[in-house]
């Protein structure tokens, strides 16, 4: 039992369960899943489908954060990828052609890759602080996306393209399948090869890693490239979901959600140890929270308050320091008085 309680993912899972149960109280059919038109249909499926793009962006963000960086430009990359693909498709006569869509997707992914490379270059080769290096693309990228769409919404009617974000395959939302596959790739790459270890070392202590002979520059660049690609795929999903590219609003503020997901998942923003499972869980929690807000009828004016409360509760529940302070007080009537100067910093021997 205590082992279970101490598991990293216990508290996030508990919160998720709580949120879902809360929904059930308001909407009796919340857990029901039906088969409709050959695909699964229900709130839980919705949550998964909505989480898919966020999961992707957060995955990329996890890797970047693990190297000790941060990527603010993911929202812009999301917008650019969607815009590139939709523009390309809208220019073709036959929008239903699979090859047209594949080409457009390839183009968008190539674009995202280059954007990731640019970020990586600024951070690793030039040595600019990640937050400011990616801020550049965050600002300019949004402009580029609008430039591509001409500030309008590009609407397309392409069933193959629709599949990415709104379609179903084997009764499951295709976007969820993509997210699962990318997650599996990320897990394999980081845990089956030595990439995970090297990334954690670089994020944990860059100087020591350099002296251990790790080529951290390449590693960091790859992390940003991966993040760019993930954001690109997410951008395709988001634009495909509504069959249109919105350079202005696609992926707006997704960087905050992604970072939040990473942190809820137990990865420290300072870099080092990371948890992919935690991140996925974090993303699902955030989207569940959104859905909860819509379903239980929180008014838009109080939405943010509700979010704030959930985030605070979530963090406090996860914080060992909080639990120690609260529970310790119960157990020992006379604790070694914790005062302002008694933080439990980890102090090496």
């Amino acid at each position, binding site marked *: 039992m205590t082992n279970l309680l101490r598991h990293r993912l216990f508290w996030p899972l508990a919160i998720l369960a709580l949120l879902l149960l809360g929904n059930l109280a308001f909407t009796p059919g919340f857990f029901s899943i039906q088969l409709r038109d050959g695909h699964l249909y229900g709130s839980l499926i919705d949550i998964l489908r909505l989480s898919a793009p966020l999961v992707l962006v957060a995955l990329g963000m996890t890797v970047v954060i693990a190297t000790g960086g941060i990527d603010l430009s993911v929202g812009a990359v999301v917008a650019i990828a969607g815009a590139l693909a939709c523009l390309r498709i809208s220019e073709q006569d036959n929008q239903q052609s699979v090859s047209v869509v594949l080409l457009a997707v390839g183009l968008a992914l190539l674009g995202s890759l280059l954007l990731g490379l640019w970020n990586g270059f600024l951070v690793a080769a030039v040595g600019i602080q990640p937050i400011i290096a990616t801020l550049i693309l965050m600002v300019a990228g949004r402009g580029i996306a609008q430039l591509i769409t001409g500030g309008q919404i590009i609407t397309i009617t392409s069933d193959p393209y629709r599949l990415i974000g709104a379609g179903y395959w084997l009764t499951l939302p295709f976007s969820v399948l993509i997210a699962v596959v990318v997650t599996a790739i990320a897990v394999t790459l980081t845990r089956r090869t030595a990439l995970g270890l090297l990334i954690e070392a670089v994020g944990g202590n860059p100087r020591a890693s350099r002296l251990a002979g790790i080529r951290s520059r390449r590693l960091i660049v790859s992390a940003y490239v991966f993040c760019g690609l993930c954001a690109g795929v997410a951008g395709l999903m988001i634009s495909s979901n509504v069959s249109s590219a919105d350079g*202005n609003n696609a992926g707006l503020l997704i960087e905050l959600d992604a970072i939040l997901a990473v942190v809820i998942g137990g990865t420290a923003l300072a870099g080092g140890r990371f948890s992919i499972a935690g991140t996925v869980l974090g993303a699902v929690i955030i989207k569940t929270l959104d859905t909860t807000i819509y379903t239980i009828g929180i008014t*838009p004016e109080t939405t943010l308050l509700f979010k704030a409360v959930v985030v605070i509760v979530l963090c406090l529940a996860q914080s060992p320091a909080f639990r120690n302070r609260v529970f310790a007080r119960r157990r020992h009537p006379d604790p070694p008085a914790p005062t302002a100067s008694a933080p439990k910093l980890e102090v090496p021997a």
Partner: protein
Amino acid sequence: GDSGAGGGSDDKIVMGFAQVGAESGWRTANTKSIQEAAKAAGIELKFSDAQQKQENQIKAIRSYITQRVDVIAFSPVVESGWDTVLKEAKDAGIPVILTDRAVDSPDTSLYKTFIGSDFIIEGERAGEWLKKEYEGKPETVNIVELQGTTGAAPANDRKEGFAKVIGTEPKFKVIASQTGDFTRAKGKEVMDAFLKAQPKIDVLYAHNDDMGLGAIEAIEAAGKKPGVDIKIVTVDAVKDGMQALADGKINYIVECSPLLGPQLMDLAKKVVAGETVEQRVLTEETTFTQEQAKAALPNRQY
């Protein structure tokens, strides 16, 4: 008096225009209309984009004052908080024209005129259509509302106007109302949830076409027919929205026209020439039913 027309006043009129941003296709069409109209009218346009920030708009206006343009026009991000900078403009003798949205300053001498739509009226029109549509049917009508960005003026006003009208009949019930941030993606996301949580939805009122279009996707995914199973009324009348209206997926659109460029340039010329103009100029706007949409669609520009 507008005596101080400094700078390059010899031939061309110089107009400083401080746009809100480019947050939507509607806004982009608005910008384009103004730019094109300026060119056509032979007015030199200094344009700046505030990226949805009032601070930036104020900065831009202040910079136009130091650049001594002949006339300043801008679409206020919000109604409040313009007095200081407008007073500076007045002191510098530069006339100001408001477009698209009003400011709430009690001192109306701060600006010459205001041209634009009235969001409250738009909301009212949507409500009136609904009333007519359900005339004589006594059973309750369950309405869900997709609001614009929380706190944004069009969202506040369209909500208010709509509520005022339908509030007169108790059979209309807004059973869920949530922000969709004026975007398709959010519109779809929220509608998805509404469809699961609400057993019976009769009408969707969306504060703009884009959210309505997103919601249509959600409704279709739920196996329902938009426009039939759920009636949809939206505001804006952008091309995609008109198409959906023509296709019968939307039932009614209240127009909010972004094309106020030509009107604006006319006013600017008059103002600079010292002619008196009306304090409030409404843009020419209408509403669309399915038939009207089919007729209007071929020459819809935005």
